């Protein structure tokens, strides 16, 4: 089982726990993000049917909480894998880290905030794992929206800019958030791939939202 815990702002963790007795008892949770700068947002896990592999996929922000809208907000998708030996899950090794995207380039329909969805899922067979995550690498930041969003959060409304018109005021890629996915290589090479990353591009696919 895995989840995100935010006890301390800017020190959020991807938590993971297992049970070896059918859910009667659970091991003390551990942090399993693969980079210290990862602030987990959404996470999913999958166990292979033969119980020998555990896969994780998570979205994470890699910069601290921003009090302005003027700085980039990198979002990544990460895939990690752990071997299971004697019912015990080993340490997670990073298998893939997506190219970062700027979350400011996503948007709710009313433009007042970003929107990423919660499309983070993993599945596994004995032969491979497959994963999807939110990805904004194909989106573009829109400074006009940034300024308007910031102004909505100030008390003084006299100098607020007008509500932007994305078709006229933004790059055409503003709001172009996506679901990206990847799969691991086949089982014949699975033990080998534990020590190397998933292919950067050819194992990925993209679903346009």
């Amino acid at each position, binding site marked *: 089982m895995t989840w995100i815990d935010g006890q301390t702002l800017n020190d959020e963790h991807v938590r993971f726990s297992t049970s070896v007795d059918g859910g009667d008892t659970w091991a003390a949770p551990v942090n399993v993000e693969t980079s210290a700068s990862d602030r987990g947002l959404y996470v999913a896990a999958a*166990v292979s049917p033969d119980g020998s592999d555990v896969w994780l996929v998570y979205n994470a922000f890699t910069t601290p909480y921003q009090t302005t809208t003027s700085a980039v907000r990198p979002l990544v998708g990460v895939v990690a894998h752990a071997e299971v030996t004697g019912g015990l899950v080993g340490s997670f090794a990073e298998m893939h880290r997506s190219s970062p995207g700027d979350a400011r380039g996503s948007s709710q329909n009313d433009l007042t905030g970003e929107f990423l969805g919660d499309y983070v899922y993993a599945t596994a067979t004995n032969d491979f794992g497959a994963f999807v995550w939110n990805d904004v690498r194909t989106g573009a930041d829109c400074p006009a929206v940034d300024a308007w969003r910031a102004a909505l959060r100030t008390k003084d409304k006299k100098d607020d800019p007008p509500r932007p018109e994305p078709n006229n005021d933004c790059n055409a890629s503003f709001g172009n958030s996506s679901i990206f996915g990847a799969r691991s290589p086949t089982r014949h090479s699975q033990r080998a791939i534990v020590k190397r990353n998933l292919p950067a591009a050819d194992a990925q696919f993209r679903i346009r939202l």
Partner: protein
Amino acid sequence: VVVEKNTDAASGNWGLASGATGCTMRTDSGGTVYLFWHGFNMNTKEEGIFLSRSFDGGATFENRRRLFVVHPTGVFDPVLGRNTMDGIAGHAPTSQPRRASTSPMAHPPDRAAPTGS
């Protein structure tokens, strides 16, 4: 969405003022059904990962148990009515309950859905 009546508030049961989100279900090879969810109590402002299992194909479920305490992520955004994690006007997780800033719940739950087999 399930509405429950709590007749034993003093015991700390998560009843009337509680909510749930991020529900997920898994089965094992022996036929046991595992139901996990992220529960929150607006009175105590506590959140947790809960589990209830069914050993009869879903006809009945055992009493729920809170497995782990969970802490919400992010900072409250008054325009969105939810916590955002990456910054002001940021992403507000879709499973968070939208609320007014005067809500007694100081920090609504982020999506901490337990997932996995």
